[in-house]
């Protein structure tokens, strides 16, 4: 990667991806800024429906109708992916950009052996012969930790376990040495022990090849173990972004704080109810004015209802979108504990 180390490899500016359903427009991604550097991992965290998966799909330009990217730039090494033709984008996909998905059980075509996607990917992005591609495929399977790869490469997906299938997906995604790998909840559907293995694998591969990793997850624990920077998303927007330590030590957005508080801890006093974030995610068809989190926020003030807070600098590499920016250690205002407007 002939690239200045201080320039982000992938930069997303003001991305908006909206879904035009017959019940209205759903702004799934509504103004998102991200950047990832070579060899580093950016974690995107949030609950279901916050738009993190759609963000990943948008970078790949794989958003299906009725969804459409309506605004923004996605710069890969300075080149705006959104201005490329379909053909040019196809070259990037699988080549410079790789993606692995949440459901390894259904991400492989059941009618073809595992060699097929590997050969497909390699032949789509290089001039390899089938024989060479097959050999490379075997090597890749070995690299992702599949035992007896020369035998396994002829297996069909249904003959492999979930963990193995995900390893195959990783091999396929990394086959053409992408600059950026997007991992959308790669371990959510897997057993806990397998989760750890997969992530360790991703970390090792990343170290060896300098690939930038965009890790999309709802699991804060995974984020803590694997990410260099973290972006927290809520209702289609990034509400806080910071280096990993800063997020966990000094979160400044009430949502992030709520998430962290909700992590069950071994030293939690017994017989006390576990803390939660009251309320529910707003209906995307009827988003509230001002800050989207205010209905559930214990710190909301009058300004939160009228003006939407922008992302504000609060430290080195740390931004947060909140008018109050409460201290994590401060006690919660009692009257607002159960949420409310």
């Amino acid at each position: 990667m002939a690239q200045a180390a201080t320039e982000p490899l992938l930069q997303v500016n003001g991305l908006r991806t909206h879904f035009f359903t017959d019940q209205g427009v759903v702004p799934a991604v509504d103004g998102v800024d991200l950047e990832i550097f070579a060899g580093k991992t950016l974690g995107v965290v949030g609950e279901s429906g916050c738009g993190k998966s759609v963000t990943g799909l948008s970078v790949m330009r794989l958003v299906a109708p009725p969804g459409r990217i309506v605004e923004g730039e996605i710069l890969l090494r300075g080149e705006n992916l959104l201005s490329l033709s379909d053909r040019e984008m196809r070259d990037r996909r699988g080549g410079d950009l790789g993606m692995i998905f949440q459901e390894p059980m259904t991400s492989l075509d059941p009618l073809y052996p595992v060699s097929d996607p590997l050969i497909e990917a390699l032949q789509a992005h290089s001039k390899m012969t089938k024989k060479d591609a097959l050999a490379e495929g075997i090597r890749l399977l070995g690299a992702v930790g599949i035992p007896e790869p020369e035998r396994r490469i002829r297996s069909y997906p249904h003959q492999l376990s979930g963990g193995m299938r995900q390893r195959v997906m990783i091999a396929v995604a990394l086959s053409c040495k992408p600059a950026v790998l997007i991992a959308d909840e790669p371990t959510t559907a897997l057993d806990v022990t397998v989760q750890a293995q997969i992530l360790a694998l991703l970390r090792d591969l990343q170290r060896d090849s300098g690939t930038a990793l965009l890790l999309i997850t709802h699991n804060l624990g995974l984020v803590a173990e694997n990410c260099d920077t973290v972006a927290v998303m809520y209702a289609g927007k990034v509400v806080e972004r910071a280096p990993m330590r800063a997020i966990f030590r000094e979160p400044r957005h009430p949502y992030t704080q709520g998430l962290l508080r909700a992590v069950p801890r071994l030293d939690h006093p017994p017989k006390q109810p576990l803390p939660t974030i009251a309320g529910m995610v707003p209906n995307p068809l009827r988003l509230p004015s001002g800050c989207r989190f205010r209905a559930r926020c214990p710190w909301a003030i009058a300004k939160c209802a009228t003006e939407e807070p922008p992302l504000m600098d609060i430290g080195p590499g740390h931004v947060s979108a909140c008018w109050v920016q409460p201290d994590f250690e401060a006690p919660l205002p009692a009257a607002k504990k159960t949420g409310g407007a």
Partner: protein
Amino acid sequence: MIVTAMPSNAAPNDTLEDDSLSETPWQLTWRQLRKNRFAMAGGAVLIVLYTMAILANFLSPYPITERSDHVYQPPSAVVFHDDNGRFSMWPHTERMALNTQTQQYNSLSGSAVPLRLFVRGEPYRLLGLLPLNMHLFSGSGGVPFHILGTDSDGRDVFSRLMVGSQISLTIGIVAISITFTIGLLMGGIAGYYGGPVDNILMRICEVIMSIPQFYLLIALAGLLPPTLDPRLTFLLIIVILSFVGWAGLARVIRGIALSTRELEYVQAARALGVSDLTIIRRHVLPSAFTYATVSATLAIPGYILAESGLSFLGLGIKIPIPSWGNMLTAAQNLEVLTSKFWMLAPGVMIFVTVLAFNFLGDGLRDALDPKLRR
């Protein structure tokens, strides 16, 4: 290690005002169905057709068995002048006579008579109960008005078409109700009990389903004695149709019942000592119900086509009772087919009816499919 902060309680005044949460599944389905214009059109057409069937006697100007010597008369002309040739806003019709040399019917000029509305004619019973003798329209002055001409015995085709709709439209519905009931019951029992009961029932289904359907229909219908009371024939045709049709439905219901049986709430009910029949009725059948409803709506056209096919071949409803199928039998004659087009009207009616059912059934299936919601 669950780390997500899942919100646990909805605060009383939060911003979630999603109305769709308060709709029953039926309301949701109806709303989805309404959006499908073809399905709505189909439904409207069916309402018109069934109203027509109920009012058949009222709409028919002539009794269906009344013969005349106007054999194969083409549709009567509608003219807008009276017998003196003066223009009239009111529709008139003219007498037709057969030119024995050309074997063609011609309108006799100077014979125009006005059409009459709401005339008293042959008495009938509306819905089999209410005695009436009012008919919507007719000719006058002894000049018959045959909108769709006459058939081989001089009978008014339009009247027979109207009355025939009663047969053709009800057979399908009645037969499907029987099939529906038997299929649900048999399938539910077979799937729920499993074991030898299941085996026997499924073997029976396979036997029935292994015979090409129409072969079986021909055999069953063809063996009815031709001299049987027509009403009995009508009932037996329904029975035959149901007999041929229930096996397929039962098979699928059985599959659904099998998978439902293993669900936990069914096991819980059993553990509570709820009787088997109640479990079948309240837990197993409702999940099969949706499939069965769609299946039924889509099967009605099949039954209508089957009945008309059988009647067409002379095996179903027998003349003189009119059914759209047997009214088309005459069209097998090449001469009739090529020159007497009005005899094809029943075919068009069958087409329209079946099309409407298909639109409606298809729309219903889409509306009930959870993947297509919103």
